[in-house]
């Protein structure tokens, strides 16, 4: 039962093959068996889940079910969930019982989805391996000695290991797509502003984007149908109509023009991943697509641009954690300065402090123009490069990561080495574009993935291509043996 996709489970509930309570119990059972080992969840909300499942079953009995009613999912512990600890993977918020609900989780909750728990992440979403969490690293279910990617590593592992039917994630520089690639699942980073950020704890405000992490593109469409849309509580949320993301899933791909950016296929790319991605390209050609090489010449510069902009925004977004109104407060502060400095030094981990310091420096007097402003200018150039590309092709296809999952601890002491691994995902966040990560092969027993990058608000098209690809292949059906 737990190997089924969200869409299949939805059909099973509708047919009455099983109840939501039964399904939820099965997931909770599996979480009990494997979470200690994988550390995908920070908090398992058994009671809430069972109560929601019982309510979902009642709704279904009353004939009020919709596609998500009764489906057990997990939330990245960056979304505020009222009455439930929302830690963001940080000691700073270890005692933070959120007093309100994020728009994403509220929408899923009103659609009838059941919350199994809150998943692990790099502290404040700052990382690519889920090793910087205060709650310890999450393991990759394909090989427990490797990382699941990050920062949404807990959600990725939960979905890959079938500890949840689907999960929410957030993507600031690849945090949905990279862990999706490392664990063999599907992950969608929507257009910036398509999914509300209200209640989603901020890392880099102009980059942060919530999205679905699922087994299939079809499941991602199902979830996006619920979480996408305008929210008056988020000024950056876009007030424009939302597609029915399932409507185009079955369109044929004949005539589709795919661009392969040559900068994404350079020397740094693992040969196994190159082969897997090119095999997927052939598959899409068989389905009617044509392929051409394009250039995104500033791809490499996305790394310095991102690692200025994101820490700069983060450095001030995290100023609110001061030990005054909520969160961690140091013991016996002698004065106000001591309260601030020790609460923050003790409450934040090393990588978070590092990014706060970098960001503070980049915004400080005399350096703003050389760093922050320069990075924002480069950001426009990167966006323009994509727009040039989209004049020639409909979508851009590229590997999601340059290499498969690395060994736990391998890059922990070398932040720059870890940052370089984000090279293929950062540009889309800087440009605000949607991108869909799909599993497309394995290298040494570890999943690897490709991503499809579309123009603004073209999520429907990406999901269509992803679904057609998954109809023709079975990489998305592979799951690790626990």
């Amino acid at each position: 039962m737990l190997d089924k996709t969200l869409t299949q489970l939805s059909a099973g509930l509708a047919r009455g093959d099983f109840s939501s309570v039964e399904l939820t119990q099965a997931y909770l059972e599996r979480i009990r068996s494997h979470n200690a080992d994988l550390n995908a969840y920070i908090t398992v909300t058994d009671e809430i889940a069972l109560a929601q499942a019982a309510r979902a079953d009642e709704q279904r009995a009353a004939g009020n079910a919709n596609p998500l009613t009764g489906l057990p999912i997990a939330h990245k512990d960056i979304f505020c969930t009222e009455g439930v600890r929302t830690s963001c993977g940080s000691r700073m918020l270890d005692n933070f019982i959120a007093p309100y609900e994020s728009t994403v989780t509220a929408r899923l909750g009103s659609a009838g989805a059941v919350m199994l728990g809150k998943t692990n992440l790099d502290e404040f979403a700052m990382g690519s391996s889920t090793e910087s969490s205060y709650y310890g690293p999450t393991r990759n279910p394909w090989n427990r000695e490797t990382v699941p990617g990050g920062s949404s590593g807990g959600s990725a592992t939960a979905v890959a290991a079938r500890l949840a039917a689907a999960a929410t994630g957030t993507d600031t520089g690849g945090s949905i797509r990279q862990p999706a690639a490392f664990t063999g699942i599907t992950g969608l980073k929507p257009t910036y502003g398509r999914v509300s950020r209200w209640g989603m704890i901020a890392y880099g405000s102009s980059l942060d984007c919530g999205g679905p992490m699922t087994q299939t593109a079809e499941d991602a469409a199902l979830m996006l149908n619920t979480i996408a849309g305008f929210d008056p509580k988020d000024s950056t949320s876009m007030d424009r109509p939302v597609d029915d993301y399932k409507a185009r899933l079955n369109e044929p791909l004949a005539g589709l023009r795919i661009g392969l950016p040559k900068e994404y296929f350079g020397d740094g790319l693992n040969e196994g991943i190159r082969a897997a991605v090119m095999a997927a390209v052939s598959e899409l050609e068989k389905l009617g697509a044509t392929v051409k090489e394009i250039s995104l010449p500033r791809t490499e510069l996305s790394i310095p641009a991102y690692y200025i902009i994101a820490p700069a925004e983060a450095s001030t977004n995290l100023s609110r954690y001061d030990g005054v109104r909520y969160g961690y407060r140091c013991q016996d502060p002698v004065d106000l300065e001591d309260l601030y400095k020790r609460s923050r030094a003790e409450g934040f981990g090393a990588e978070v402090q590092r990014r706060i310091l970098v960001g503070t420096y980049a915004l400080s007097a005399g350096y703003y123009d050389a760093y922050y402003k320069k990075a924002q200018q480069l950001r426009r150039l990167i966006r323009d490069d994509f727009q040039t590309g989209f004049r020639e092709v409909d979508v851009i296809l590229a590997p999601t990561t340059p290499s498969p999952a690395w060994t736990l601890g391998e890059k922990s002491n070398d932040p720059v080495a870890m940052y370089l691994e984000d090279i293929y995902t950062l540009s889309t966040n800087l440009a605000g574009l949607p991108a869909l990560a799909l599993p497309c092969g394995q290298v040494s027993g570890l999943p690897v993935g490709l991503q499809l990058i579309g123009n603004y608000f073209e999520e429907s098209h990406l999901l269509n291509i992803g679904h057609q690809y998954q109809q023709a292949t079975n990489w998305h059906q592979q799951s690790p043996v626990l």
Partner: protein
Amino acid sequence: MSLDRSQVENVAQLARLQVSEDAMSETVASLSSILDLADQLQKINTDGVEPLSNPLDATARLRADDVTESNQRDAYQSIAPSATDGLYLVPKVIE
């Protein structure tokens, strides 16, 4: 770009982060290596390019002037480290 210790101390003061003596040299080194990475930006000519702060170049949507919030003090202060008589408490502030 390599930083010196006093620059790191200054930034840590602005960010209100206590950097311990033990961690200082490693902090100086890692910040310097990150800024080396960032310095690739300096090679690029961006003259006349408007900085992009929102990817969609969108503009503000305005809210009507309505009071929509009610008093939730008890709920919000139940998670406060220190509050008395409805006030958040901090070590004495001297002006």
